[in-house]
Structure formats: structure tokens, C-alpha cells
């Protein structure tokens, strides 16, 4: 299984997934017209996935933002339609990286609460299968036998459940950001209040 290394996934889960809301909110501010935030995020993960499994990255946050920044810079360099204003604005925001330090403090509780929420919202069948797979560590085959459903159905339910969890975690991120976005738009023009 050369493509999906569990070790790498574990590293990403611990070091990159928690940073995604920040990356997303930052990208919303710096992504020039013509590029999509979701695409940039997938491309960034692709870069991380292509690293050798044993490479040690000391400062995941700085590294992640560096990757995203390079993707945008390359786009701006190659693009003929980007305005000078966009370039200046993007360049200015990049300066903020100077302040990144390697320290990282996670709120374990918040993460667990989010995860609980995501699982609790799964539709019944998805959740049952998911709980058996993750809580009881049952292989898909065993789950199928226990529930007397086909292995194919188990696989579909797991795929759907995972998809919903990914989506739910994203929704939460986007929701939390709306205020930030408003604030930054306001401060760019004249402040409303």
C-alpha cells in the first residue's frame, strides 16, 4: 500500500488537520480571483502526501502555510490577468508569516467535542457501522456478518459516514470564520461602527 501510508495519515491527523481551519480562513483572505480555496487545500495536502513517509517536519504550521503560499505565488507569477492591487495585497498578507513560531497548543477538549458532534449527527445506519468499526475495532467483514448485510453495504456506509464527518468538520470551520471575514472587510474600507 504505497499510496496511503497510515503513519503519514497519523502525522497529518495530529499536525495538519487541526490547522486546516486557520489555513482555510487565511486562504479566504489571500486567494486571488480565479483560484479556489478548496483546490488549494487539496493541492497542499497533495504536496504533504508526496513527502517521504519518514521526513520530519519541525514546524508543521509554517510549512503548511509555506506550501499554500508557494502555490498562490506560482499562480500569480504565471498569470497575466492579476491586478497590481491583488499582488500588493497578497504580498502584504504574506509578511504575517514572519510571526509564525513552531509552538502549537491544541485544545483537546474542543477537538473531541467536534468529533463527538460529527459522529452524533450521522444517520443511524452510518453511525452504527461507524461505531462498530471505530469503538469495537471490528473489521468491515465482521460488521457485515453481525448485521447480516452485504460487505458492499458496509463499505458504502463507511464511505458516506466519513464523507459526512469531513463535511461537517468543514462546515463548522466555515461557520466560525464568517465573523472574521466580515471584520477584515470592514477594516479595509472605512469602519462601519
Amino acid at each position, binding site marked *: 500500500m504505497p499510496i496511503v501510508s497510515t503513519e503519514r495519515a497519523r502525522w497529518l491527523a495530529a499536525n495538519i488537520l487541526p490547522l486546516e481551519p486557520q489555513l482555510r480562513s487565511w486562504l479566504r483572505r489571500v486567494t486571488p480571483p480565479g483560484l479556489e480555496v478548496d483546490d488549494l487545500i487539496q493541492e497542499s*495536502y497533495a504536496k504533504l502526501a508526496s513527502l517521504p513517509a519518514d521526513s520530519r517536519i519541525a514546524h508543521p504550521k509554517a510549512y503548511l502555510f509555506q506550501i499554500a503560499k508557494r502555490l498562490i505565488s506560482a499562480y500569480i507569477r504565471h498569470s497575466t490577468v492579476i491586478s497590481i492591487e491583488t499582488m500588493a495585497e497578497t504580498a502584504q498578507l504574506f509578511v504575517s508569516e514572519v*510571526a509564525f513560531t513552531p509552538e502549537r497548543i491544541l485544545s483537546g477538549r474542543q477537538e473531541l467535542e467536534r468529533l463527538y458532534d460529527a459522529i452524533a*449527527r450521522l444517520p443511524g445506519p452510518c453511525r452504527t457501522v461507524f461505531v462498530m*468499526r471505530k469503538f469495537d475495532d471490528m473489521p*468491515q467483514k465482521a460488521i457485515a456478518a453481525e*448485521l447480516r448485510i452485504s460487505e458492499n453495504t458496509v463499505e458504502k456506509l*463507511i*464511505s458516506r459516514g466519513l464523507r459526512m464527518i469531513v463535511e461537517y468538520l468543514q462546515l463548522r470551520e466555515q461557520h466560525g470564520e464568517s465573523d472574521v471575514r466580515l471584520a477584515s472587510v470592514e477594516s479595509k474600507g472605512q*469602519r462601519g461602527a
Partner: protein
Amino acid sequence: MCDSLLSRARASAVRETAHAIDVAASAWVARVDRGLTEAEQAVLEKWLAGDSRRAGALMRAQATWVHTDRAQAFRGSHELRESPRARFWRRAMPWASAATVLLGLATAFWDWQGQARTNPATAMGEIRQVPLADGSRLTLDEQSRVSVQYETATRRVRLEFGEVLFEVAKDPKRPFVVQAGNIRVRAVGTAFVVRRHADGDVEVTVSEGTVDIWRETTIPEPAVRLAAGNRTLVTTKAITVPVKLTDAQLARAVAWSVKVIDLDGRTLGDAAAELNHYNSRTVVIADQRLAAQTVVGRFQATDPMAFAAAAAAMLDAHVRIEGDRFILEPGPSPQK
């Protein structure tokens, strides 16, 4: 890859959406989880080669899949488990009711609290602060675990492995004792770091106050007193002679526990106010409009100078130093 990003952006009408890729990636993770056939393996490789974003989406879905292993923490939750075999397909409500979710959250929170009180732990790359009921605070470095046992007469914390900074609230009637194997470190009101090496040796560094160190052995042993700024190594054989650390060495010893302020679009004014809580040297924003600008980044709470410099670079301002104050003013530096 960047060229493909560019060409894709131009031909945006025909490209596959990020969403569609995410859906396919989840399906692949589920297949990988049950084991791929050789034929499927080839299909997956072909799929991945088709678009650079796909490998990223797969990696991300896989990471989320691994992340959900943490759900083990809710294993005891009846809310999540409830649906039994018989009711499998007949659940009337596909979505948990809001009440169930709330109750579940409360349970999860309660469980977590209970866990934090008894044995908080950290994974690789994680640093965690654990406030305790008496106002003391533990900061766990990555891959550490402690077990907290507060009794009426003694506050006991067992360091199972790793490294922990203990900031102990003063309570002379109730000593604070750290246990690492048979080694004991007792404090009243102080701050110190205990690091338990894999071989059982224990390193103690005191940054404030004093602590007493001894080993629980059959033959009683006199305690060794360690004052602020000193470090000692306790082995199975002996408590070695303490070494006096320089200020820089001491700062390095606790550097991993330094408080970081995460600013993600907060105003400069807010950020400066929070930073000023931690420092005697303050950051002053001279201009209202500047104070309302938003800033992004992570800053060490104890480094106002770095914060001021970074903010100035970000917001087209400059820093004027006046005694203990870093004053941020709009526009370029007048000296230039």
C-alpha cells in the same frame, strides 16, 4: 503542478469540482480500510494520476479517518451506541435529535473532564495545559502522561512518562508532591519541570521557589533541596550534585511551555491588549484606524518586541520605542 493549477483555473468550466474529488476520496478510504484487490489498486493509482488534487483529497480523507480513532474516547457513550441490530433499518429519525446531541455533548464533556482530572496525556506534537482545581497548572510536553490524585492532606501527581512543567499554587498545609518511579519532588508554591527519561532517570529543573527531592527506598534518605535556577539528575543510584543554570539555559528549559497567542483576524488593538496582560513592556497603538486593522499569526505572549515588529511589517506602520513601550504608529519610519 502550478501550471496545472493555472490552466485549470482558466478552463474552470470543465474541471472536476473539489467536492466531487472529496466524495471519491472517501469511497477510496473505505475500500482501503477493507483491503484493496490488485485490480482496485491499479484503478486507484490511475485515479490518483489523473489530477494532482486527488492525492491530496485522499490523504486528507485518510487523515480524517485516522483522526476519528480518537472517538474511542466516547466508547462508553450510550447515545452514540444506542441503535441496536434489530432497529438497524427501522430508525424513524435518521438524525439525532438536538436534545440527544446536547445531552451527548454534556456527557462527553463530563467524561473528558473526569479524564483530565485523573490522567491527562499528550500525543506527538501536542502541548497541553491542564488547570487543576486548586489553581495549580500543569503543562504537558508532547508524549507525556500524568495521573493526578488530589487528597485532603497532599496534592499528588504521578509522572508516568514525558516532561511536565508544574506551576504550583501556594498552600503550605497541602504539599504538592510529584512522583516519578520511586523519586519524589515536593513543593509548596513554585514552578519546576520534571522530565522522566525512558531509562527511569529523572531530571528536575526549578524556575521559581524551591523543591525537596528524595527517593522512596527501604532505608530513609534525606531530602535534597533544590533552589530556583538549578537542575539535578536523579538516577537509581543517587541524586547528583545540582548544576546552576544560566538565565538563558533556564529560559530554554521551559521554552516549550511558553504561552502563544493565536491571532486569526482579530484587531490589532485587541491583540495588543491581550499581549499586554503578559508583559511589563507594553505595546501601544497610537492610531485608532491602525488599532482596528486585523492581524494574523502566532506570537509568543512574552515577546512584545517581535509582535510589534511583525504587526508593523504587516500593516504598513513603524515601531517607536519609548522606555518600556513599543508604540506602533501608521506610515513608514520617519528616520528612513
